[in-house]
């Protein structure tokens, strides 16, 4: 074929993070595979609401019967190939159905709590925890995945909300930028 297909995110207009504000980045192009099993099973050895990282792949127990694998395509494939599943397990590639944003920085929880009712306190939502909730009125899965010692959250939602959700979260961060008027 003439043109090589190129993955496009649903965040079509990313905006620069204002100085000092938590950084919002679009990680939608990561490969994402949903592993489904019976409630209570543990096909990947990761519990519901917990995460693990194996060979660069993040494994997140996002529902009692669902685990999400996030990473580079080859890494995810290798991990899946190296895991033995019983017949009741299904794997569905959701790379294209899920939008994935990352919000990082000291104030990222404060920004998120403007649009999400979960308690982001360190004891309630520690690094490595997952939770699902509405973010700016969009059902989302949140994964705390700290980076360089700073809090960082992955936010996954239906792809079609991409630009809307990006804009809504971006709006929450502006208050923490140095350009914001202070009292």
């Amino acid at each position: 074929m003439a043109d090589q297909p190129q993955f496009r995110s649903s965040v079509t207009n990313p905006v620069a993070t204002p100085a000092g504000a938590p950084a919002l980045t679009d990680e939608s192009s990561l490969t994402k595979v949903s592993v489904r099993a019976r409630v209570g099973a543990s096909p990947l050895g990761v519990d519901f609401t917990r995460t693990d990282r194996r060979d660069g792949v993040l494994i997140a127990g996002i529902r009692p019967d669902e685990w999400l694998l996030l990473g580079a395509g080859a890494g995810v494939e290798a991990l899946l190939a190296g895991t033995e599943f019983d017949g009741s397990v299904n794997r569905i590639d959701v790379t294209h159905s899920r939008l994935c944003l990352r919000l990082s920085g000291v104030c990222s929880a404060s920004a998120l709590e403007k649009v999400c009712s979960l308690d982001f306190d360190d004891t309630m939502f520690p690094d490595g925890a997952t939770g699902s909730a509405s973010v700016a009125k969009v059902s989302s899965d949140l994964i705390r995945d700290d980076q360089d010692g700073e809090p960082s959250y992955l936010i996954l939602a239906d792809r079609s909300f991409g630009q809307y959700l990006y804009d809504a979260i971006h709006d929450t961060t502006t208050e923490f930028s140095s350009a914001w008027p202070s009292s």
Partner: protein
Amino acid sequence: MLLVPCPHCGPRNSADMSYQGEASSRPDPSSTTPTEWREYLYMKHNPAGWLRENWYCSSGCRRFFTVERHTVTSEFREPPLPGSKTPRPTGDGADPARGAP
């Protein structure tokens, strides 16, 4: 905002949940009578007191569960019972979120 005890997630805001109504049991469709079936479809206990009811953790774990809630004091009886066998008819327009003056 009521906290609804999800057996999987823990207490969650009711706004993250979808209310499924009174728990009732579905008659066997092959032997049911019109009276029995329509009682299942339409009739309610609607008590002012403890009510067995179903919720769907729609923004959370996406599991259905049954709880007992007091319809006057809004207390929940613990623990919630995971997975109820009491489907409600939906799509019948009886969406309580509507209502015109």
